[in-house]
Structure formats: structure tokens, C-alpha cells
């Protein structure tokens, strides 16, 4: 189906089902229960899951396939966001032109940086990309404030021209982002017994775009072009002695992944029209590297899992405070309750970084292939229990 083989089609269908049903899947706990703290099915976080999923999928096209480790990819995301917000300020609140512009601008920016950085390989390439991104961040924060609004981030105001729209709505507010009139922030809440589920227009736009991005990534992975990219990672020497010019291949991968980042940035601005300079900082670039490695570099689904994992911790664990802990452990006798709270407290709320750091270490120590490997091990254990007619794996698909 869709030019994919059976296995990939299955994968695509699973991913599509997971994303489209995310409002249910991410809200497994009844809204009033103590565990509702762990529900992630609210629009902002769901949007972030898929947007960072797109970012990581794109990053993986570069890093997972060619092995070039860019430490400056956040710059493209930032540039995409700025372009989109400028489009909202100048043209209209429709998200389509904003997203298109952000992809184009990020692509051009990636072409420029990639052209220079790809003259070197290995860690030298990483440092070059890092240097470009840090320069972008530092300048965006300070000297380029007229374009980026510096520390505060680029925001919409009531005085923006918006040639094809209105500067301010009739009741004096800033108009909201929309897709031909459908507001991105529109949310419908479905209450089913003790559960409640939120369906957000913006999320579904992001989800559909992510599915397209994922589909495109699958096609790239399975194409001769994708094979060439893996060949670069595997053996650059053989590549050139086979009559292939590795540079344009790597550059194409770099630009494509830069455009994915721009797309993610544009979507972020479309969901929430603000573009902050921190999006370009090295920590943001590092985050996408971590997402990809954590999920499983070079696999199709890994980066999406990694993105979800990190964003979940950032948004859910950071919000647990000692009051919540006390309510969880309130069934225990007082002394024990306090002891439990004291024990767990360092790992939640302001300690969420600590938990994340420990999990990074555990995953990389015990699951060298990232979360995908964890999944594979579970599947294998599952298969072994059932009598299985398929022969045991003699080879693992290199790209899977």
C-alpha cells in the first residue's frame, strides 16, 4: 500500500492509529483519580509530542542514516518559528503560508550551514554545526532583537499589519491562528463516565502533518537515496571509490532534516504564536539528539518514542509537587507517609531533571539500541513463549 511493503504499511497504520486516538490513549485515568496527574492527553502536550516527533524524525534522517551528528539542529527549528510568526504578523493568521515559509526558510538556512559544515566530518562537523547554532542563538537574543524580539520572544501585537487579515478582532483582541477559518485552539471535550477526552483542532492538524512526515521518512528510508545515505555512514571510502559523490547526498539529507525542523518550528508557532530564542540554544539541539538516541537512532519509530518520552517527563513530572505526593500516600500512616514523600520528593517537581538523567543512563546502559530495542526484546520474549513458525532471526534489518 502507498508504495510500501507489508511491514512498513503495518507500522504506518499503527502509528496512524496511535496518533489519531492519542486523546484516548494518553488519558487512561479518570479525571478525578489521583493518577490523573499522569494523564498527558491535553492539547498542548499532545501537540508537543507530535511536533517534537516531526523534529526527531527529521533529525534521524540525517543522524540515523548518514551518521553525521549535528549539534545545531535547533537553529532550524528556531528559524522556522520566527518565519511563521512573521508571516502571522505581516500576512495573515492562516497557518498554511506560515508553515510553507518556515519550511522554505529553514531549508535555505540548512543549505547554507550544511554546505559549509559538511566540508568536515566526525566531531569537527558536530562542532561546526554547534558553532553556527550558538551564534544564531546569541545574536537572536541580543543584536538581532529588532527581528527576534530577543529575550521575550517574537509575539503578535494589536498593531501588526496582517495584510490579508485584521490587526485586531472586533472585540479588541489579537486574532487567533486558523486554517481557512478553523481555529487551531478549538477543543471539544468528550466526557465519558469519569473520563474526559479533549479533541483539539491544532493537534489533529499536527498529527496529520506528522503522519505525512513519517510516511515521507519511511519512503526515504526505503529508497535508493536512503540506501546511499546508509552507505555514507557505513563506509565513506568505498562510497567514493564506487563513483559516488557523498557530499551532495549528505547535503540533501541535511537540508531535508533542516526542513523537517523548520516544519516543526512552523507548527509550534502555529499552535502557539510565539518564537523564543531559547529554541535555538545548544540545549535544545542536544535535546533532539537525546530524543533520537534514546528512542533508537536509525530506526523509524524510535525518534518519535524518544520525543514523547522526554516531553512527557518535562511536562508531567515537573508538575508533581509535595502536595500531590501527600495526597497519593495519604492512605499510609503519618510517619510512613512522610517517609515515602521524602523518598520520592527529590525525583519529582524541581527534581525532574534528576529522574531524566538517571533514565538516560539506564536506557543507554541496558538498552544500547534505545527504547526500540526495549520494545523488540519484549516482542521477542513474547514470541518465544508462543510456538512460532517463522525461523529465528539470522539477520536483523539494518534499518529497523
Amino acid at each position: 500500500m502507498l508504495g510500501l511493503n507489508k511491514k512498513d504499511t503495518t507500522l504506518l497504520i499503527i502509528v496512524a492509529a496511535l496518533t489519531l486516538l492519542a486523546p484516548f490513549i494518553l488519558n487512561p485515568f479518570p479525571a478525578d483519580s489521583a493518577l490523573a496527574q499522569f494523564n498527558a492527553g491535553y492539547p498542548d502536550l499532545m501537540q508537543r509530542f507530535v511536533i517534537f516527533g516531526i523534529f526527531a524524525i527529521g533529525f534521524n534522517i540525517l543522524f540515523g542514516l548518514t551518521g553525521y551528528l549535528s549539534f545545531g539542529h535547533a537553529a532550524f527549528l528556531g528559524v522556522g518559528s520566527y518565519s511563521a510568526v512573521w508571516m502571522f504578523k505581516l500576512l495573515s493568521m492562516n497557518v498554511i503560508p506560515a508553515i510553507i515559509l518556515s519550511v522554505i526558510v529553514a531549508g535555505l538556512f540548512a543549505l547554507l550551514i550544511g554546505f559549509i559544515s559538511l566540508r568536515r566530518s566526525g566531531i569537527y562537523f558536530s562542532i561546526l554545526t554547534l558553532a553556527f547554532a550558538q551564534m544564531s542563538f546569541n545574536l537572536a537574543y541580543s543584536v538581532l532583537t529588532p527581528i527576534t524580539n530577543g529575550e521575550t520572544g517574537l509575539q503578535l501585537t494589536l498593531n501588526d499589519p496582517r495584510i490579508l487579515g485584521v490587526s485586531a478582532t472586533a472585540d479588541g483582541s489579537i486574532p487567533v491562528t486558523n486554517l481557512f477559518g478553523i481555529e487551531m485552539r478549538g477543543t471539544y471535550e468528550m466526557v465519558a463516565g469519569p473520563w474526559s477526552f479533549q479533541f483539539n483542532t491544532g493537534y489533529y492538524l499536527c498529527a496529520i502533518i506528522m503522519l505525512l512526515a513519517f510516511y515521507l521518512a519511511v519512503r526515504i528510508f526505503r529508497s535508493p537515496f536512503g540506501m546511499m545515505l546508509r552507505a555514507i555512514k557505513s563506509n565513506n571510502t568505498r562510497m567514493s571509490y564506487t563513483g559516488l559523490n557523498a557530499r551532495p547526498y549528505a547535503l540533501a539529507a541535511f537540508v531535508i532534516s533542516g526542513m523537517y525542523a523548520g516544519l516543526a518550528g512552523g507548527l509550534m508557532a502555529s499552535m502557539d504564536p510565539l518564537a523564543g530564542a531559547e529554541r535555538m540554544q545548544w540545549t535544545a539541539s542536544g535535546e533532539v539528539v537525546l530524543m533520537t538516541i534514546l528512542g533508537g537512532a536509525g530506526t523509524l519509530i524510535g525518534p518519535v518514542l524518544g520525543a514523547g518520552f522526554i516531553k512527557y517527563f518535562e511536562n508531567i513530572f515537573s508538575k508533581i509537587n509535595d502536595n500531590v505526593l501527600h495526597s497519593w500516600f495519604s492512605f499510609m500512616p503519618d510517619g510512613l507517609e512522610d517517609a515515602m514523600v521524602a523518598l520520592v520528593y527529590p525525583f519529582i517537581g524541581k527534581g525532574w531533571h534528576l529522574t531524566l538523567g538517571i533514565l538516560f543512563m539506564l536506557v543507554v546502559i541496558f538498552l544500547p539500541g534505545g527504547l526500540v530495542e526495549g520494545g523488540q526484546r519484549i516482542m521477542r520474549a513474547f514470541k518465544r513463549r508462543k510456538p512460532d513458525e517463522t525461523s529465528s532471526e539470522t539477520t536483523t534489518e539494518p534499518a529497523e
Partner: protein
Amino acid sequence: MGILEVKDVNKRFGGLQALGNVNLSVVENSCHAIIGPNGAGKSTLLNCLVGKLIPDTGSVMFDGQSVLGRKPYEINQMGISRVFQTPEIFGDLSVLENMMIPIFAKRDGAFRMHAVEHTENEKEIVDQAEHMLDSLNMADKRHFHSASMSRGDKRRLEIGMCLAQNPRLLLLDEPTAGMARADTNNTIDLLKQIKDERDITIAIIEHDMHVVFSLAERITVLAQGTPLVEDTPDKIKGHPKVREAYLGETA
């Protein structure tokens, strides 16, 4: 006029004269061996032929065109393929994919953005690759992870990948170095078979005299960066200067 003409090539590394006035002519469809003791400049010469090094002076012509200043991939596209001392294959890829890449390179050139086609739908390429693997007796290994194969199989695959491009000149850099006797003999048989079946010129650098004398039609002896003699294998065997400079040492 040979297919490969090396004229007055000099190469210095700092104070070391790696190549001094090398002249070499490889006749089309022949097998030409270059031998010499360690440090004689064999590898330097080879690197000058494929664009990895640029000679200080002199010229290297392939089929009437200069190769100097061209990048390795451009030289490959001219029809020169190289086999390395340690097999250079795409270790992370399957054997079949390894074989497909040179065929793609032959068909599409140095770069083509074929990002939407599905590799499995490239019937013509897959067929050619499988055919090539068949002829190497590797068809059963087509889905193997190539890095996990034996050295002999890797060598076989590498030679196959070079041949899949139908090169006019095949350069072999000590193709049997570090190999077990059986693998060496297999490799010799493979090369003999190639020589017999194809219109191909082979230039080989080799330490193992058994390999050289089984394959070569002409031999150039290099010592201290300069060709000592060039002749047929029989003559070389008995040449006093060669015995003194080279064979004597390694005997």
C-alpha cells in the same frame, strides 16, 4: 600505447622521495603486477592513480585522459575500480545492498536524488545484483549482514562490487594479504576466471609471489620509489637485480 600511462611521476613527503621518475605502461586487457619490498612506493603509486594523492610532477593518463586533479569518485566514473588491502565494503548493509550500490552508481552517476522510488521496485538493479551474486556463488548470502562475513567472503564481495561496474581497469592492492591459504587460492581462481571471461585490464600490487606468478603477464619491480625492471614473469624470476633487491630478502 597502454590503457594506463604513467609518465615521470614524482612524489615527495617532506624529505622522503616516495616516488622518483616512475614510468609505467599497462597494456589493455593484460594483467600487470607491481612488486617491491616494503616502502618501495607501491601504495603511493596506487594512490596517485585513483586520485587520493596528487603527484608533484609527471602525468597519469587513463585511456588518453589525465586523471590528475580529479576526485576519486570521478576517476571511478572514468572506469577505474579499486580493491583495497583490507576489504572496504558497506559493513552495515546487507550483501545484496552492497552489490546494488555500484550498479546504481553506474546507472545514475555520482549523485541522483531518487528519494521516492522504492529500492525493492528497482527490478533491473536488483536482478543485476542477484545475477552478480550468483556468479560469485554468494546468492545464498544475499541477506547477510556483510560485516559479519569471513574475510574471504568480504574480499569476494568487494571484487564483485568492482566488477559490477564493468570497469575497464581493476586495481588490486594486495588482495590476499592476511588471508588463509584456501581463501588465497579461491581469490586467485576468481581473478583468473574474471581475466578469462571479461575484457578487463588488471593492475595488481602483491607481496605473495605465488599470486603474482599465477596471474601476471607483466611485472614491474619497484624499489625505493623507482622502477627497477619491467618484464615477463619468467624473466623477472631469474633477474639478478630483482633477486638482490627483493626476492632475496623475502626468500
